[in-house]
């Protein structure tokens, strides 16, 4: 890049970073505000953090969000990984049909998936609550597990399972000792996608949860308007995500270094 372009490019990227982080910084800063205002600084205080942990409503929402995300991740990852293995052995017609149906929730707007699941529960007169919310999360996470794991399974050498079999491994042993280690990275990636999708989901939960809540539903249905307790909650979430992202970044750059060496 020449002399004029470089500062220009830097300024542009600087503005982008500001655009992306200004709202996040303001969330964090006002979580430490002495008074209730979200726009005027009144001094430093940790009172919103104490209030956050004292609020049963918010704590229930946080715990249920985590619980549902963990269960939905476990179930959809197991179901999806097994299905990916089955699919790789199915006939092409079945495979194509299954993958088409599998893509419905991925291509459709979230709200359409939400409406469909609501109608399902209403039609079969299932009371909506945490169980229906969990079922809904499994419904939208599993397709993502499939599209993440299936390509990896398909690229596996079919002789691998055969070899395990010939060497006397039972199918379960072959799965555990030969196939799973080969697709481990894809399975972990799929679980990570499922977890974030479930943890952040709003629309589908909102339609299928009835009177149950998670963090998103709690925020959306807040009647009194937003209080700095929400900022305190955001700050904690941002901190956890920040740490995870940084850890991952250094871990992966270390691995890259090793590969080069």
């Amino acid at each position: 890049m020449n002399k004029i372009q470089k500062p220009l490019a830097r300024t542009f990227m600087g503005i982008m970073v500001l655009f992306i982080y200004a709202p996040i910084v303001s969330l964090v800063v006002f979580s430490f505000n002495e008074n209730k205002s979200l726009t005027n600084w009144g001094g430093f205080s940790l009172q919103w953090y104490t209030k956050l942990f004292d609020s049963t409503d918010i704590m229930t929402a946080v715990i249920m969000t985590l619980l549902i995300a963990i269960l939905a991740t476990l179930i959809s990852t197991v179901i999806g990984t097994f299905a990916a293995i089955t699919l790789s052995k199915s006939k092409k017609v079945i495979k194509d049909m299954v993958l088409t149906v599998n893509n419905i929730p991925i291509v459709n707007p979230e709200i359409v998936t939400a409406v469909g699941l609501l109608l399902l529960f209403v039609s079969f007169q299932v009371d909506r609550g945490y169980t229906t919310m969990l079922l809904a999360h499994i419904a939208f996470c599993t397709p993502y597990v499939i599209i993440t794991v299936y390509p990896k399974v398909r690229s596996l050498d079919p002789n691998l399972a055969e070899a395990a079999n010939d060497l006397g491994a039972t199918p379960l042993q072959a799965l555990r000792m030969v196939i799973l280690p080969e697709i481990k990275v894809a399975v972990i990636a799929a679980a990570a996608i499922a977890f974030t999708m479930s943890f952040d989901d709003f629309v589908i939960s909102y339609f299928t949860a009835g009177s149950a809540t998670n963090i998103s539903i709690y925020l959306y249905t807040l009647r009194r308007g937003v209080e700095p307790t929400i900022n305190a909650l955001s700050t904690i979430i941002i901190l956890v995500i920040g740490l995870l992202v940084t850890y991952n970044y250094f871990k992966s750059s270390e691995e890259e270094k090793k590969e080069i060496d």
Partner: protein
Amino acid sequence: MYKNPVYKEKSPRKKITFNSAQFIGLPYYVVLISLILIPVILIVFYAVTERVNDLFITFSLTYFRQFLNEPAFIKTMFDSIKLAVYTTIVALLVGYPTAYLITKTKKKTQNLLILVLTAPMWVNMLLRTLAWKQIFEMFNASLLGTDFAIITGMVYVFLPFMVLPIYTVLSKIDPKLYEAADDLGASKLETFLKVTLPLSITGILSGVTMVLLPAATTLVIPKYLGKNRYLIGNLIENRFLQFGDWGYGSAIAIILSALIMVMVYLTRKLDRNPEAKE
């Protein structure tokens, strides 16, 4: 006579492998049919039938007719699509240069920049939208409720979906192509227009689809940044959760899906042209 005992033992085992491979996929098929396929069928069913009394239901297109005869609803639909299109254009105009400039840095800086730009994506979308509400209240509260506030919020939330696919495509372009263009006497602008842009069209289109779709159907952003402005997502929410009007709500959902599929189809169509020219 010599017999190979190992061989004999093997054949029944192979059968088990085949059966168990089918068996472990079973829970998925249950999910696929009961939680994905049946809901879609139900949406269509509710949209095209009408309850006569407790026992009978008939085929009817009343709900579709009702929607098309209500100018206020049509206006809401076009309002949503208009805002989504503006958002997509702004996201492209901002996202493309961002992705392009990232590819011009060192590999290590590239990874870091991508991380910096996408990390906030992991934070709950409602919290990020609330953060923008706070920013607007701090600097100019009168902007809340305007198209500007809604578009800003949507660009903010969906920008990574534009930057990532474009970056992926741009970073795969062979640098030798730029050298070749330079050697052949192309100016920087010519290189960009004739080499970079055509090669990145796939990334652009996938970014456009990934921004357009959620932007057209969001519930959260119009509520927080639009001062409870009513867009198509809110209309569906309202029909279902406030009125329990399944049939009407389903009809609107179908119309929305159809419109979006047409837009996605047209976007994909664009992808054909540059390839055909090559």
